[in-house]
């Protein structure tokens, strides 16, 4: 035998040998077919085990785990953060009387051009707005034309999100749709370039407050809600 024991072969497979020992084992293996076969067996074992369990880490994490974390991230920091989210409403309370001034003409036309359409008699988000509500995270939206403000659970259950763009407002998840609860003229494209509160902010905050159960979720809660499809 070559003085190479099982532990050395194993350490080679596990990437734990230093350069000198690695060369030594490899030389011995090259000169000894029986040793080469044992090394191959160790390699196969490692590949088989890691291959067997690898798919577990690829699966979507079960909802009950997400719920545990989510509960934690909304409940624990709530007392500390509660006043902060109201800061979103810094825009002053200009009570602009023109409701739905922008885009409203398209709402009922049945074409898909606008951000809001009709579905079963309800105003629902469509196109880019629906996409933003589905996928966009408030924590990652640097250049987005539509900005997501708060994500929160409403009284009686279900998710709602506030948004700002050409149209600003609040939409709540209803099945696969986002029902628009409120739509006001938004901050337009400025929303994307610099973070200024639109005149609609105060009224949107009122809507949020009337709907919300508890506090808005933070970035983690938002992400988890998205991964469960806002259900």
């Amino acid at each position, binding site marked *: 035998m070559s003085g190479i024991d*099982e532990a050395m072969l194993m350490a080679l497979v596990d990437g734990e040998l230093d350069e000198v020992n690695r060369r030594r084992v490899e030389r011995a293996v090259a000169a000894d077919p029986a040793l080469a076969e044992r090394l191959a067996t160790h390699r196969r074992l490692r590949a088989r085990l890691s291959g067997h369990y690898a798919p577990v*880490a*690829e699966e979507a994490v079960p909802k009950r785990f997400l719920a545990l974390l989510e509960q934690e991230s909304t409940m*624990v920091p709530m007392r500390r953060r509660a006043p902060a989210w109201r800061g979103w409403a810094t825009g002053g309370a200009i009570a602009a009387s023109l409701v739905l001034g922008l885009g409203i003409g398209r709402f009922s036309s049945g074409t898909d051009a606008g951000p809001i359409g009709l579905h079963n008699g309800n105003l629902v988000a469509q196109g880019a707005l629906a996409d933003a509500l589905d996928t966009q995270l408030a924590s990652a939206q640097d250049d987005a034309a539509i900005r997501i403000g708060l994500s929160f659970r409403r009284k009686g259950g279900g998710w709602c999100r506030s948004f700002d763009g050409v149209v600003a407002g609040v939409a709540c998840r209803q099945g696969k749709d986002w029902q628009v609860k409120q739509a006001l003229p938004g901050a337009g494209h400025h929303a994307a370039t610099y973070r200024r509160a639109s005149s609609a902010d105060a009224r949107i905050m009122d809507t949020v407050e009337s709907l919300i159960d508890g506090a808005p979720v933070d970035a983690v809660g938002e992400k988890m809600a998205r991964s469960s499809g806002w259900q």
Partner: protein
Amino acid sequence: MAFEHDLLAILPRLRRFAASLSRDRTDGDDLCQATLERALKARDQWQPGTRLDSWMYRIMRNLWIDEARSRQRAARTFAPEEAGAQVGHAGDRDIEAHMHLSDVERAMQSLPDEQREAIALVLVEGLSYKEAADLLDIPMGTLTSRLVRGRGALIELMGEAA
């Protein structure tokens, strides 16, 4: 919160570790849930700046060991006549559950706990010997000898398939 965020990122690996320790996926997810609950409760004990994954692996491993010990105690405590009518039923269920296991799972199941956890950390989770030894609070030499014995048993059990 950064803590939940980091936990979320580690979760898939934790589930994998739990699956390799447990006898089936259901037990694995139960272990994973218990680990999460424990970690959330003990979050103040985690020191920011240290590795959260190691901390979580350790919690999971300790819960698993506790669970295994209490199972063994229960197995020793119940005399056959006390277990009575349940024996047949539980036995059937065990056999049935066993039939659904793959060769890999069956072989892992048959390893002594201290070999299984070493194999799981190094071969499945890909930890270095040092990381695994630190996590299990054992010297490197102890870890490597468990790895050698565990591998030998797995190769024997899985035969050519290994």
